[in-house]
């Protein structure tokens, strides 16, 4: 009988599972590329590309099977959410934005190409009257600049195409929004669920830590860090992510508190599930709807934070984010107004779209609301 006990395997061994072996191979190959990149060859990929590849692989390995197994649920929620036309509009705009950010740069001019011949071009249909001192006649003459269809949104004071800048700015904003929110949500969920599930001392420690983090003036911290380490987009994203999880942690904790007393948690304990397993495969899937709503509603805040940072001149100068363009444009708002208006409208629409979608999802996920 004691023999039987000795034969208990510690954790499920999933060797032989084809999907897993492919996954491991791909990750290993990526690791080798990374090592080659660091020690042998120069750049194969840049660091951000590695992040994309890893995220892509994780999505294919875990995201797609999950979406597939829960397709009926997704269908059900889509049915509920699609009754909210604003939410559908928001989703459409976000998808359009993602598409724009992904493939837009292939079709537009180089957003960094400076061309002083074509500076300050208004959008087509508008004209700009400019007083120029003519060297030949020694008089001021009025130049009328009309927009061309070559630059649908006009150009800025260095002759850069505004449409191209807006599109590359969309990429920046979405990157910041998604990655920073991803970090924040992951941290917040883990901390919230762990605190609620373990309870007692652990709960106290984690939640007081959350309180302390909450009282931190995060924008000031961001300004400090940018001041010390220099403006760098990745750094900004990480800092926003590492400071923005507190609200999520609290919400998730309160939701989990009621879940942990449910009988199925006790039942899975009775069937031998470990704490980590209960947290990862029983508690988190049950708060996933809340996570999705929080994530959707916190993306606009993050995008605005980055824009604000750029606007006060602490953004990454190497990337043309919307906040950057806005800052450049607001100095000449009386003449070349379109430079500031275009990114302003984009920010406005993006934030609105995410908020509408978030509200719609919240209603769809709430069993008490009958949308």
């Amino acid at each position, binding site marked *: *009988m*004691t023999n*039987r*006990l000795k034969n*208990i*395997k*510690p*954790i*499920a*061994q*999933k060797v*032989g*599972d084809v999907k897993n072996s492919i996954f491991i191979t791909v990750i290993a190959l990526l690791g080798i590329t990374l090592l080659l990149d660091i020690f042998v060859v120069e750049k194969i990929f840049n660091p951000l590309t590695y992040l994309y590849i890893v995220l892509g692989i994780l999505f294919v390995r875990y995201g797609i099977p999950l979406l597939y*197994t829960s397709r009926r649920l997704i269908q059900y929620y889509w049915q509920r959410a699609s009754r909210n036309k604003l939410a559908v509009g928001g989703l459409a705009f976000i998808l359009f934005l993602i598409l724009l950010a992904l493939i837009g740069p292939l079709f537009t001019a180089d957003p960094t190409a400076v061309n002083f011949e074509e500076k300050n071009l208004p959008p087509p249909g508008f004209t700009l009257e400019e007083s120029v001192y003519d060297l030949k006649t020694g008089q001021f003459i009025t130049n009328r600049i009309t927009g061309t269809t070559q630059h649908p949104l006009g150009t800025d004071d260095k002759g850069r195409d505004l449409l191209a800048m807006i599109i590359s700015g969309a990429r920046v904003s979405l990157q910041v929004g998604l990655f920073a929110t991803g970090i924040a949500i992951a941290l917040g969920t883990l901390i919230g669920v762990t605190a609620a599930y373990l309870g*007692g001392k652990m709960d106290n420690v984690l939640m007081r830590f959350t309180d302390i983090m909450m009282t931190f003036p995060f924008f000031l911290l961001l300004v400090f860090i940018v001041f010390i380490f220099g403006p760098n987009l990745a750094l900004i994203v990480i800092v926003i992510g590492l400071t923005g999880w507190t609200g999520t942690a609290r919400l998730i904790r309160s939701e989990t508190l009621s879940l942990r007393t*449910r*009988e*199925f948690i*006790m*039942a*899975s*304990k*009775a*069937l*031998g*599930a*470990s704490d980590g*397993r209960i947290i990862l*495969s*029983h508690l988190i*899937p*049950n708060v*996933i709807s809340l996570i999705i709503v929080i994530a959707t509603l916190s993306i606009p805040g993050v995008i605005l934070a980055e824009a604000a940072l750029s606007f006060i001149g602490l953004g990454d100068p190497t990337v043309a984010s919307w906040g950057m363009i806005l800052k450049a444009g607001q100095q000449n708002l009386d003449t070349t107004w379109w430079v500031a208006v275009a990114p302003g409208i984009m920010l406005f629409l993006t934030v609105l779209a995410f908020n509408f979608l978030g509200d719609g999802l919240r209603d769809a996920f709430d069993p008490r609301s009958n949308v």
Partner: protein
Amino acid sequence: MTETILRIRNLRTYFFTRRGTVKAVDGIDFDLLKSKCLCLVGESGCGKTVTALSILGLIDSPPGRIVGGEIYYNNLNLLECPPDQLRRIRGKEIAMVFQDAQSALNPVFTIGNQIVEQVKLHLGATTREAKEKALSLLEEVGIPTPEKVANYYPHQLSGGMRQRAMIAMSLSCDPQILIADEPTTAVDVTVKAQILDIFNQLKNTRQMSLLFITHDLGIVSEIGDRILVMYGGRVAEAATVSGLLNNPKHPYTASLIRCLPDITQVKDRLETIPGTVPSLIDPPGGCLFHPRCDKALAICREETPPPFIVAEGHTVFCHLYSHLER
């Protein structure tokens, strides 16, 4: 004699609350034999479920704590087991079926998914093996279309089907002992009979030992081999099922049996036991049942009754039998 698979000696589980110490289980002993069914019977709050959770080491601490006793699974004292080893025993060696399968199944996963995860976790099987195992388990508990049911979420099933799925899940790792905590309370009579059939079958085909918690003496007669009547966290009477039902010795057991509605007799009122279950924070002295007992003696107020053997394998904790051998 059959092998004893679970031996409990003087188990005491107390809950330390702000209002005082609740002696939920206060010194119970029993043996569970291989491929036999032991029924724990008693009113609500008499410590049946706490006993079961104590065996699995699932008492919430704080406020609960097992303050004494021994729980031997084969020759392993579960109370001295490191948490990790205990966790591996749960589910794989000793599994539990809960009363309400609706809330004991995770609402966001399909039935099949939950069983597959369970099999993979404990037996280290591949997904395909685990899926086959899940289907055969569902078939074993009498689900007619396992392929279909495996793809259902818990809320899409009827109560009986859910309970079967729950049983299938607890069987997924071929446990030696199955603890069933009122598994038939939440289902209707016809389904109840089917579920009991499943348990009987499991006992016979799988040589599994059952610890069956119920308050329904009818079920006990269907499925039980031995019965343990609990009152206020203590054992009142322990006997074979036929011995106890035909010849109850403890006044409490006798009143319980009198309370059973009899379909052949027309009565205006059903029998009840006067009084209520004693508060376990501030229990009455002596025998816990004496305030409600119509045969109470003076000594019952003073002394906790020791066990008296009234027949072969039939012990009763009552001063009425003090003339008998301890």
